[in-house]
Structures are given as C-alpha cells and as structure tokens.
C-alpha cells in the first residue's frame, strides 16, 4: 500500500501551500501519475477519502491524469508509446529504449476557497 504514503505526502504539500494563497478549504486536487508507478486508482480514491477526514481537504475531488509510458529509441531517437516491455523500436528495430515519460508522480494543481 504505497498509495497511503503517497497520499500523506500530497496532503502535506497541499496543507503547506494553502496559506500562501489564502485558502482555507480545498475542493479539488489534480495529479499526474505515470503508468510505470503501479499506483492503483481505487486505492488512491479510498485512501484520499480516509486520510483527508477532518482536514481542510475533506470532500475534495481527486482527479488523476494517467501518463502513458513513452520510450525513445537509443539509436534513432524515435519516440513512441511503449505497449510491451519486449517491444523494439518500431522504426529501426533497435532493442534499447530509454523511458522518457511514464514515471511522473506529481500534483499538477489544486483548487480551493
């Protein structure tokens, strides 16, 4: 359940940011999570509900944007969506692929009053 540690970090960051923007209540939190992170969306929603109880984030909506895994061929630099780890570069068939997106674990923005 790394989801719980991730949510606790989200709540800490938002609580720290709120006074800077004179906010007392948070209504929405938007995340960007890469598919490599193996984060379970249902566990995130459930954990968010539990962890935010009796905090200014209670009842806030949690939005998760999933970022697909993008690879770049080490040889020809072609960028493509990685569907299987066994895929070679679809353009030049080179086997070594660098991951350039899909490891995100970010708060994109939040809203409040």
């Amino acid at each position, binding site marked *: *359940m790394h989801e719980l540690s991730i949510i606790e970090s989200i709540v800490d960051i938002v609580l720290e940011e709120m006074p800077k*923007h004179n906010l007392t209540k948070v209504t929405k939190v938007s995340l960007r999570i890469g598919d490599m992170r*193996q984060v379970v969306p249902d566990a995130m929603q459930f954990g968010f509900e539990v962890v935010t109880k009796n905090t200014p984030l209670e009842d806030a909506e949690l939005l998760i944007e999933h970022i697909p895994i993008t690879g770049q061929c080490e040889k020809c630099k072609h960028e493509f969506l990685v569907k299987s*780890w066994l895929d070679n570069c679809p353009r030049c068939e080179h086997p070594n692929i660098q991951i350039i997106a899909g490891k995100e*674990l*970010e708060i994109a923005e*939040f809203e*409040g009053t």
Partner: protein
Amino acid sequence: MIAIKVPLVKNILEANDKISDLNKKFFDEKNVLVVNIMSSPGAGKTTLISNTINALKDEFKIGVIEGDIQSTYDAEKIAETGAQVVQINTGGACHLDGNMIRDTFDQLDFDNMDLLIVENVGNLVCPAEFQMGEDFKAMLLSIPEGDDKPLKYPLMFHESSVLLINKIDLLPYIECDVEKIKRESKKINPEIEIFEVSGKVGTGLVRWLNLLKEKIRQKNDPK
C-alpha cells in the same frame, strides 16, 4: 465563493527525496557505501546478506539495517555474524523511506563502517518508489518465484543496478527459464548487472562480492 486554482507541478515524493539527499550527503562524508536490497518476501535476502557479511567481514566493517513490518528474526540472524545491526519495524508500511533510515543514525557507528546494507521490506512493488540515500539498489529474484516477474514488476527491475537471480541451486527441480529472466530484465533496464547465485550454497557469489569490494574501495578513495 469562486474557487481559486493553484498550479503547482510538484513531485509528490519531494519531501522523501530531500531527506534522502541529506542521508546521501551524510553517508558520503562518512565514506560508507550504502546498498539497498529489495525483493519479494522469502527470496533469500537475509541469507544472502548474512553470507555476504561472513565473506567480507575480515576485510571490511559492515553495518545492516533490517526492515520488516514486524518481528526481529532477521536482525537476530544478522547479529550472529557480528555485524552492527538495527531492526526497523515499519508497523505496516510496505517499504523503507528516507526518514526511517535517518532515525537509525544514532543507533549505528558510521565511523566504524565501510559498507551499510539495508534490507528493505519484502515486496516487489513499493520499495522501488522510495529513495533512502543509497549508492545503488540491488534486487533479488529467486527462481521459485517464476520467470514472469520482470514484466509483472517492471519498475523494480528498472530502478535496480544489480539483479541477483537467487536459489540457482534449485534449477534442476524447478521450471524456470533463467535466460528469459535475463533477457526481459535487460530489455527493461539495459544497464542492469545480472548474477546467478545461491546465497545459501555460495554458488556465483564471487562476482557479487567483487562488485561490492570494488565499490567500497571507490567510496573510500573517491580520487
């Protein structure tokens, strides 16, 4: 009331990364090489660590941090080698993080240490997410777990510098395609170094020990 939008774009694990950076700095000042050992439960981490210590302890001073949800079995087993050891009980958390490592700093003597081995909580998912200030990550995959694990748990294979394919002595009794493990691990992480070992019997350990020795020497003498 109109809602105010606050654009942030902030790494969620930033707080842990910051503590890990501080830990790394501390370990660097003390010239202690730190390796984070990860695997599923029962892959043989404690046995491998125990035999690694026994092979290196005449040459180097070694400390161990044992991470488990509960119990002190592993720390007791490591203590038999004579190495300094601290047990962390996470109480439920499925991984170690930078803070937990930092909490052990007053319980270990880093001035008398060349190598710190951190045995993470047994789990193929979560430990890969959390830095702790280590120099490198090594993972174990024991062959009874099956040859499908690289594709099932790619992040850990992606984050590890070393893969120890463990319990290789059981190969005659187990259906497991070791070449497939190697091929698919390299596909996920072309840089990963792979050793076939038996932590218990000692097969193949020389290459692993040589790698540790070389890295300890580099850390002791960064020039």
